[in-house]
């Protein structure tokens, strides 16, 4: 069956509208209106109650900052580990490489809860339980395998010859990393950064176990709302929750603009 261009455009907008734009708009409207009742006359009663309840939540701002801090540190550690392990797996040949490759994926195969329970005892002994550093470390478990995979593929598609060319022209390891590797790995870096940040932001159970209630992230404040608050408040909270990665995205994009040889005014392939 052949689609005409106009049909394609129409189906694109229909799918985007129904699956993406409508839910977002619906959520925004919901956060400003009182709950609607079925079998009643359809009337929208606008209110700011949802947002005022949310903003009066004592721990909201501090939880947001803690989530941002933990997420940022998790992302940074993921990048350091992912870039080095990904590069090694992409370019170096060594004994046990395939075993190493499998081991890196193991955290995704084992139930995260089981790992967290086991690690918890170790964390208590090391004095890392109930601290944000402990939470950062446990957040590495569900994120590192993805980072290594994504950045490894990034290095594979970059190819070793490009890096050798840079070296041959006089670049040392540091200059090459800054001028060639980072700019050319930008798509892989973006994927890694947002995936790991969103995974970290959404962790509830492992944060609760390792954080022991002392480390209050946004997820810790958000989940109790699911049962108690009204759908208006919940909608406002969901938007707030979604704004955090968007804010982080903007910060990251600004930082990425400072990489060498970036020209925001030209589109490159």
């Amino acid at each position: 069956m052949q689609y005409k261009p106009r049909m394609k455009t129409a189906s694109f907008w229909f799918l985007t509208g129904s699956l993406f734009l409508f839910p977002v708009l619906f959520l925004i409207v919901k956060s400003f209106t009182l709950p609607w009742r079925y079998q009643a006359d359809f009337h929208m009663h606008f209110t700011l109650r949802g947002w005022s309840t949310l903003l009066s939540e004592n721990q909201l701002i501090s939880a947001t900052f803690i989530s941002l801090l933990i997420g940022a540190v998790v992302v940074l550690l993921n990048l350091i580990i992912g870039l080095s392990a990904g590069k090694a797996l992409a370019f170096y040949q060594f004994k046990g490489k395939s075993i190493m490759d499998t081991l890196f994926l193991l955290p995704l195969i084992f139930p995260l809860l089981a790992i967290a329970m086991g690690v918890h005892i170790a964390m208590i002994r090391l004095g890392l339980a109930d601290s944000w550093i402990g939470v950062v470390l446990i957040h590495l478990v569900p994120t590192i395998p993805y980072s290594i995979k994504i950045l490894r593929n990034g290095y594979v598609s970059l190819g070793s010859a490009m890096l050798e060319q840079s070296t041959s022209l006089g670049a040392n390891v540091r200059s090459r990393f800054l001028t060639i590797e980072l700019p050319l790995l930008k798509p892989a870096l973006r994927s890694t950064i947002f995936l790991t940040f969103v995974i970290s932001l959404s962790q509830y159970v492992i944060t609760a176990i390792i954080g022991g209630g002392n480390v209050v992230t946004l997820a810790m404040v958000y989940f109790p709302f699911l049962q108690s608050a009204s759908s208006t408040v919940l909608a406002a909270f969901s938007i707030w929750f979604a704004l955090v990665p968007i804010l982080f995205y903007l910060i990251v994009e600004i930082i990425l603009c400072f990489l060498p040889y970036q020209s925001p005014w030209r589109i490159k392939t």
Partner: protein
Amino acid sequence: MTQSSFITLQNASKSFADTVIFKHVQAQLSKGEILSIVGPSGSGKTTLLRCLSGLEPFSAGDFIIDNQNVTKLTANKRPVSLVFQQALLFPHMTILDNVAYGLTFQHVKKKERAKQAQELIDKVGLKGYEKSFPHELSGGQQQRISLARSLAISPDLILLDEPFSSLDPQLRHEMRDWVRKLLKSQQMTAIFVTHDREEAMQMGDRVGVFNDGSFQQIGTPQDVYQRPVNPFVATFFSDCLVLDDHKYVPVSHLFISNNTSNDAHLQLEAIVQNQVFIHGETFYQLWVASMNKRITLPSSLSLHEGANVTVMANAEAVQLFPEDEIKE
């Protein structure tokens, strides 16, 4: 080592674990000279180039440039630049940034970098493309920029690893002549690696035939072509019929006959396999069953496929390989 040599390679060897890639390689180049290294795939010539560039360490031997031993220098500190088979332009940089890239590590100021890069872009005939990105250029243009980028850092030695292999035949021919002229105009000392003997002849002041991890013979293209020192060079680089380990006949001294003759010193039964037309002449590909070899000879005779013919040569045409194989 001669007094005039600018580049000297002494007893260079390279092994990976138990596998010897090349051993005891010796070579010398004077300043501004182009040496073509030609050899079959897997002969070790690309590894030799990688070792010269510093991307791989030599297992043994010395590499001297302008009386300075650079064997221990890392690739980024060696006054050597390598042009790869692919242009490998940095896709996130403009053409100007690409050409100026190496100069940033030589602490050249930004304005001066741009000026020098611009001069080279003009020289390679791509004026007006400074602000373009690599994907906007054709394969040939990209390879020219790649060469300009390597020349920009003013290396003492430039290494070219089959840089035309990804180009179409027409463009390849044009590029050979153009690159040679450019290198000569810059008085650049260069080593050019290829598996194409015609390209080697065209590019190099001298050619080095490389096989089994060593130079089989180094000399001017004419010298190596006319006086091969061993059966491999005679087969791979020259057009010769190798009779045994000691004797060969240049194909220019062979001729085809329909009959046998008592006058000819050498007579070999052959079968016509097919014919090709090159430069206005007819060439026949013949199968010499007694030697298990195929040779190509020109002839004005009208022969059909499958015809039985005799390949002949006079006694003076048979030549001997030098007993002490002079490898320079």
